[in-house]
């Protein structure tokens, strides 16, 4: 019995120290996970959790093809030229968000494929199906907020 208790304590301690977000916040933190649509409606972003941080990738584009080339849109505005041949669909445009509690995720970045710029970003959960996402430069004052709505796949 003592062995079992020791094993349980060891596992509990390891799990506790390996996870920065408290157990009671875990459910709130994961409220960010899902499929979201920015207000412009031209893309859909799927947010997932990878090792305690949250990442969002473009999973759908209203206009998937470049109007000039007719080929799938590429990340041709990226300042990193090696990315110019990367397809926009599948591109991870939200990176490294960490849950801060009270329905807020920060320390992340948002990438704008229209101009190739990456902005600091903070996300707030307005209600379970609505996000307020702000991209900014340096200080939050120099930024712009957008409202994203949660989507679900039709079954």
């Amino acid at each position, binding site marked *: 019995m003592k062995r079992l208790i020791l094993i349980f304590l060891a596992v509990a301690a*390891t799990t506790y120290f390996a996870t920065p977000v408290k157990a009671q916040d875990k459910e709130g933190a994961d409220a960010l996970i899902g499929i979201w649509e920015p207000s412009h409606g031209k893309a859909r972003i799927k947010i997932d959790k990878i090792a305690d941080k949250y990442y969002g990738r473009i999973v*759908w584009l209203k206009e998937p093809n470049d109007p*000039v080339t007719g080929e799938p849109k590429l990340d041709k505005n990226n300042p990193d030229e090696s990315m110019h041949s990367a397809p926009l669909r599948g591109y991870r445009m939200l990176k490294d968000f960490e849950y801060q509690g009270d329905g807020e995720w920060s320390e992340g970045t948002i990438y704008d494929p229209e*101009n190739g710029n990456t902005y600091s970003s903070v996300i707030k959960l307005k209600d379970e199906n609505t996000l307020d996402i702000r991209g900014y430069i340096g200080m939050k004052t120099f930024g712009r907020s957008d409202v994203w709505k*949660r*989507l679900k796949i039709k079954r």
Partner: protein
Amino acid sequence: MRQINRIAIATFFITGFSFAQVFAQEEGQEEEIDWDAYGEVEYAGGESKTFANAKIVGLSPARFVTIGYEQQMPYTVQYSTIQKDGYSFDQDRQDAIDNNLGEEGEVTYTGGLRINANIPVISTNSFIWQMGFNYMQTAYRFSEGGAVEGGLKEQLDGRSLHTTGLFTTLYKPLNETNFLLLQAQADMSGDYTLDNLGDQYLRYSAAVLFGKRPHDRLQWAVGLSRTYRVGAPNYIPVAMYNYTSENRKWGIEALLPARAAYRYNINQTSLILAGFALEGASYRIGELSNPTDGEISSFEIRRGEIKARVEYQRQLVGFFWWSVQAGVRIDYSYDADYLDNGDETLRVFGILGDAPFSMRNSLGPAPYFNLSISFVSP
């Protein structure tokens, strides 16, 4: 010891399994994404509402803060004598000067500091409110000789005209394509110093526009403005037109009659603009305002100038850009009005009035340059 070994092995397997799950999930996402599934979706809660974006793709970067320096090369001036209400509106400017020449000479230096700040107070997809500050200094130095006591040259030589202003801009998208744009501005323009600053230097201007943004590469708007852009106050129609070509290499940026430019996007971090700008203000000259009778009267230089120019903008580092602008400054107006008790004169190109001028002046054209650094939103 055996106990500790068992605990360590159990811990390793359990936590190892957890991490393996995370990475398996990630790897699985890379391999098993069904892209088509994301085309068949529905809103989990309320629908998203789309509003017309304030910008279009490809525009030159919006400037949050700009610090710059501008200088004009030497040019000649001719000033008429100062006669309160002495020059009729219909009289040709050059005839009036030739028949009443007061001073003439060369301006060897015209230039100064330019500061502009445009700070978002509220910036969302459904409403934008910005507050701004601008400061413009124009210092003058004349070649020696030819100054008349009590004349304009004496007032300007070695001194500066200033414009200090606050402005606010509201952008309200009405739906996916229509929007309203409002701007109001309060400027103090003249030869004031911090010691004699007062509301006698204060002037107001404003604009309201209604516009459409049919797609990501085009927006236009029309409206009405009260402006001092040609020196004297005017009520004039205004039109905005911003366009970017389908290949995003070139475009048009225009806010008529204030400015218009052809834009060539060299790449994501540099561009060239070629066009014109109409700039001006009404400057109160304190010493010539003669408030001897106790009234706050104003002698106002109505400066309006056209700048034909080419500008090169380039990213310096991150969100800091620098720009160099060069062109020719062409005189539109440097005439003067005497405002009894500060009451403004409205002519609007003779449509609303034909009040006489108190001074007619002419400035020769001058090459100029402007260097600036900006903190921008690309």
